[in-house]
C-alpha cells in the first residue's frame, strides 16, 4: 500500500514536473547589430544611389533572412549555436537589425558565424512559426517549389534615359551563405567576452554596393541559375565587421 502510494506520488510529481525558467544571472547576452549601407550612407528605400558601374538606381523593397548565429572559441573548442535564430530584415520597417540572444554561457569567444538565407533543414516547408511562417511572410517563400527567398531586392535602375524595374529574388540551398568573423578578420578589435549579466555587441555593416559586381544592367530579373549564384556570391561579400564591444 505504501509502495503504491509512493509510486503514485512519483508518477504525479514526474508528470507535473516543469523546467521552471528561473532567471539565471550566470549567463550573458549577445547582440549582432547589422547596419545597412550603400554609397557609404545608411540605406533607405526610395533614395537614389549609384552602382559601381555608375548606374543610378533606387530600391522599393529590400528584405533578407539572417540565420544560424553561432559563437566559437577556436582555441578551446567552446561552441554555442543559438537555437531557432532566424531573422527577417525588412527595410520598410527598420534600417538597423539588432539580433539578440540571451542565455549565452560566459566566456571568451574569438569567432562569430551567421548565415544569409535558410539552412537546408529548415528551407523546404512553409509550416513553421515566427520569421519562417510562410502564411505570414508569403512574399518571402516560393510555395510551388518549397523554399524561402533568402534575399529580395526590387526597385528601378536607370537604363539610358529611362528607369527599368529590377527584381532580384535569390534562394535555393546552393545560395545559403555563412559568414565567419574571427580574430584574423579586419575590424576585430577585441574578443567577444560574454560576462554574466552583460551584453556583448558585434557591429556589422552590409554594403549593398557589393551586390552589383558582375551583374549586367540588362539582367533585371534574377531568380535562379548562374546569375542568382553570382548574386549570392556577391551578397556573401556584403557584410563587414566594424567593431566589437563588451559590457
Amino acid at each position, binding site marked *: *500500500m505504501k509502495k*503504491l*502510494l509512493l509510486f*503514485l506520488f512519483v*508518477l504525479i510529481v514526474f508528470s507535473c514536473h516543469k523546467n521552471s525558467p528561473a532567471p539565471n544571472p550566470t549567463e550573458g547576452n549577445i547582440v549582432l547589430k547589422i547596419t545597412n549601407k550603400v554609397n557609404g550612407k545608411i540605406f533607405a528605400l526610395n533614395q537614389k544611389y549609384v552602382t559601381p558601374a555608375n548606374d543610378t538606381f533606387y530600391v522599393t523593397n529590400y528584405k533578407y533572412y539572417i540565420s544560424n548565429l553561432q559563437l566559437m572559441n577556436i582555441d578551446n573548442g567552446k561552441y554555442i549555436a543559438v537555437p531557432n535564430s532566424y531573422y527577417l530584415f525588412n527595410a520598410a520597417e527598420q534600417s538597423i537589425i539588432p539580433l539578440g540572444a540571451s542565455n549565452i554561457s560566459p566566456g571568451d569567444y574569438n569567432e562569430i558565424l551567421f548565415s544569409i538565407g535558410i539552412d537546408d533543414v529548415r528551407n*523546404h*516547408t*512553409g*509550416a*513553421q*512559426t515566427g520569421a519562417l*511562417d*510562410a*502564411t*505570414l511572410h*508569403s512574399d518571402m*517563400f516560393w*510555395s*510551388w*517549389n*518549397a523554399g524561402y527567398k533568402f534575399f529580395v531586392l526590387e526597385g528601378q535602375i536607370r537604363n539610358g534615359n529611362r528607369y527599368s524595374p529590377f527584381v532580384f529574388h535569390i534562394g535555393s540551398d546552393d545560395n545559403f551563405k555563412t559568414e565567419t568573423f574571427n580574430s584574423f578578420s579586419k575590424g576585430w578589435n577585441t574578443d567577444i567576452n560574454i560576462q554574466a549579466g552583460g551584453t556583448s555587441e558585434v557591429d556589422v555593416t552590409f554594403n549593398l554596393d557589393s551586390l552589383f559586381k558582375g551583374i549586367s544592367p540588362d539582367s533585371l530579373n534574377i*531568380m*535562379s*541559375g548562374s546569375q542568382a549564384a553570382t548574386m549570392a556570391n556577391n551578397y556573401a561579400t556584403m557584410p563587414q565587421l566594424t567593431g566589437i564591444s563588451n559590457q
Partner: protein
Amino acid sequence: MKYLIIALFIFLIVFSCKQKKESFPSHFPLPSRTLTNEKEAELGKLLFFEPSLSGNGKLSCASCHIPSRAFSDTLSFSIGAKGELTSRNTPSLVNLAWAKDFFWDGGVHDLETQIIASVTSAREMNESFASILKKLNSKKIYQDKFREVYGDSITGQHIIHAIAAFELTLVSGSSAYDEYLLNKNSLTPLQEKGKLLFEQKCAICHTGVLFTDNKFHNTGLDSIFPPMQQFDNPLLGRARITQNASDIGKYRTPSLRNLNLTAPYMHDGRFTTIRQVLSHYSSGVNKSIYTDSLFIHNKRTGIALTEEDKNALVDFLQTLTDSTFIKDNSSFNKK
C-alpha cells in the same frame, strides 16, 4: 481508500494506454504521417469546404477536389478564383498520409505547404492568409473551433495544419480489389487476367497497394519540350523544380485508386478514358532523349498490349473504385 486509489490507478493506466483505432487499412504499409487529433481533422474538414479561403469567396478546396470524384474534378484544367485555368490537372486526394511529394512535379514535400501554395496561387484560390484571417475571425463558429482545438486564436499555421489533418483522413483502402487481397471476395476471370497483366506491365511504376512508386517519369506523352532557359515553364515538368535537364517532361506517378472517378487523365488531362491511356502506352509513346528507358525496347517503344489485354486491364482497374471512401466523405456535415 485502498480500492479507490487502485481504481484511480487502473483508470489512469487504461486512459493513458487507450489504443487508437487504426486509421489505415491493415494490408497497407506504415504511413509516413498519422493523424494525432481527430478534432483538428473535423475543423480541417470544415475549412476544406469553406469558400472564404478563395479570393472571390466562391471556391473552396472541395470545388476542384470534389468528394464524389475521389477529390478530383472532371476538367482537364480547373478554373481558379480569377477565372484563369490551372497549369496542370487537379489530382485526386487519396492516401496522402503515404505521400512524399506533392503536385505533379513534386515541388512541395508536405501537405501544409501544398495548402499554402493552392490558397495563394493566382491561378487557384488567389487569396492571402491575411485576408482569410479577417474573414474567419468575423465568424464566431471559427473563433470557437480554433480555440477548442488549438487553445489559441485563428492563425495561418493553424489553418494549414487543420486542413492537412483532414486530408490525412482521406484513406481509400476498401475497394473490391482490397476485399480480394483480404480474401473477402474474388475477382472475375477477366479481372484476374487484368491483374496479372497489370503486375507484369504496369506495377513497376504503379507499385503496391498505393499504386505508385512515388517517383517521376517521362512517359513519352510529348516529344518536344521547352529549353531549360525557360526555367519556370510548367511544361518542363519535374525539371522546373530540379533545374536538371534530365528531369524534363517527368511527372509524379499518380495512384490509380478510384481511377474510374478521376477522368480526365495525365498531368494535363489530355485523355478522357482509361482505354485512351492504355492506347498511349501501347502505341502512342513518343521517343525522345527524355523518354523513360522503361518504355524503350530494342524493337518497339511502349508497352506491348493487345486489345484483349486492354479489355482485361480496364476490367481490373474498375476494382479499384472505393464506394465507401466516396460515401464517408461526401459532405462536411456527415462524419
